């Protein structure tokens, strides 16, 4: 049992900080990699603006491979790579490397799905106006898909909260680390429950913020 309540809350706060740091940094870098990948998937598809069958198929394979490896295995397998990138194998910063590797293909699929929702007629209209492929990506595909991309962003972020908790198992810190060390190894149910409560609140808050932003920004819902 922990000494007192303030000690517990201090620990949870620290864990929350670690989880948020891992989640947001990983989400950011996952989009840096995944967004261009997703765009490339869409524009190289046979009916799109830059059809390239082989590139499209190869990208699909890479993304699928990335998505089939269970995160816990990916994390361990990537330790040498992580050491190479950030100089150490444990801690929150080290956990960001496997988180990004796991999330980037996930993000690519989310982006692909969002962009494919766009009416192909709109892209065709832009072509008749003499838009270059680059202009179609920057001025049609991305801005028209922003509300959907933001909704996808909430799914990615929340998935990464889950992954970052798993990363706690190999000493990445954060809320997952607390839940495993105290709740699982030491049978301190109260600590575990508190951790879960914090996680639940975190997920709810993040989802609500994303929903609000997506709704505010979407001009299709303006009817008056």
């Amino acid at each position, binding site marked *: 049992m922990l000494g007192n309540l303030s000690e517990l809350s201090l620990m949870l706060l620290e864990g929350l900080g670690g989880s948020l740091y891992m989640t947001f940094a990983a989400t950011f870098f996952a989009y840096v990699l995944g967004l261009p990948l997703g765009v490339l998937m869409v524009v190289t598809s046979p009916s799109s603006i830059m059809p390239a069958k082989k590139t499209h198929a190869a990208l699909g394979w890479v993304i699928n491979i990335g998505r089939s490896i269970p995160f816990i295995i990916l994390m361990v397998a990537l330790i040498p790579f992580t050491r190479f990138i950030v100089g150490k194998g444990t801690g929150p910063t080290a956990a960001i490397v496997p988180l990004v590797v796991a999330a980037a293909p996930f993000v690519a699929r989310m982006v692909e799905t969002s962009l494919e929702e766009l009416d192909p007629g*709109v892209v065709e209209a832009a072509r*008749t*106006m*003499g*838009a*270059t492929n680059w202009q179609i990506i920057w001025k049609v595909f991305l801005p028209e898909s922003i509300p959907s991309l933001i909704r996808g962003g909430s799914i990615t972020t929340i998935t990464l909260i889950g992954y970052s908790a798993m990363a706690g198992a190999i000493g990445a810190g954060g809320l997952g680390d607390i839940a495993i060390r105290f709740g699982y190894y030491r049978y301190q149910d109260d600590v575990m429950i508190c951790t879960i409560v914090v996680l639940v609140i975190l997920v709810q808050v993040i989802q609500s913020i994303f929903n609000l932003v997506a709704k505010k920004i979407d*001009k299709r819902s*303006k*009817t*008056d």
Partner: protein
Amino acid sequence: MIRIQNLSKVFDGPVPVTALNQIDLHVQQGDIFGIIGMSGAGKSTLLRCIALLERPSSGSITVDGVELSSVTGRELIRLRRQIGVIFQGYHLLMQRTVAQNVAFPLELLKTPKREIEARVKELLEMVGLSDKTGAYPAQLSGGQKQRVAIARALANSPKILLCDEPTSALDSLTTKSILDLLQNINRQLGVTIIIITHEIGVVKAICHKVGVIDSSAMVEQGPVKEVFASPQSPITRLLLGQMEEKEGGASQC
């Protein structure tokens, strides 16, 4: 102005589909040319070929003597800007305002902001939407959306406006107002207009000439009055007959 000779389009596949078969067409400067046919006859493919969205399998399309069917790259993009296109489904950018939609083709050319503003104002006045500048497409009616699309298609001052079933999603009153607008554009700006439609009423209302497409081939073309006064092909008679029935039905109620 637009001369199409021996134009064919075959879509490859396990079973090749001939969408256009040896089409010949001549549209003169200042014409409003209607192309009518049943769904699946090939009229949309013809429009897509003229709009440089589809490459013909054989034959030629020339606009002011410039051959369109073989251009590529930058030249293709430059030529597309000289032909405006509007669609049945409007295809507006839903996250942009009316003014931003009309500004879009000008932005693509990196036109200075001030020039864009002036041109957008002028275009929206012409289509009668000056009061909707800041509205989003979701807030507009079908007829208003088509007006935005027309303003957008005319932003680069094209010599040709292609219309793919421009009124097929609209009620009869709105159809009339859109057709009036197209007629005004033709008269005031001298824009040559090609309208693809399955509604014979559209052709009768504003077209000078008509071409009838059936099963991928042009079966008949000429001045609207002549073609409709003595239709030569069964499909033209059928299309005309359909309208008479409709009118007869309307007068009965």
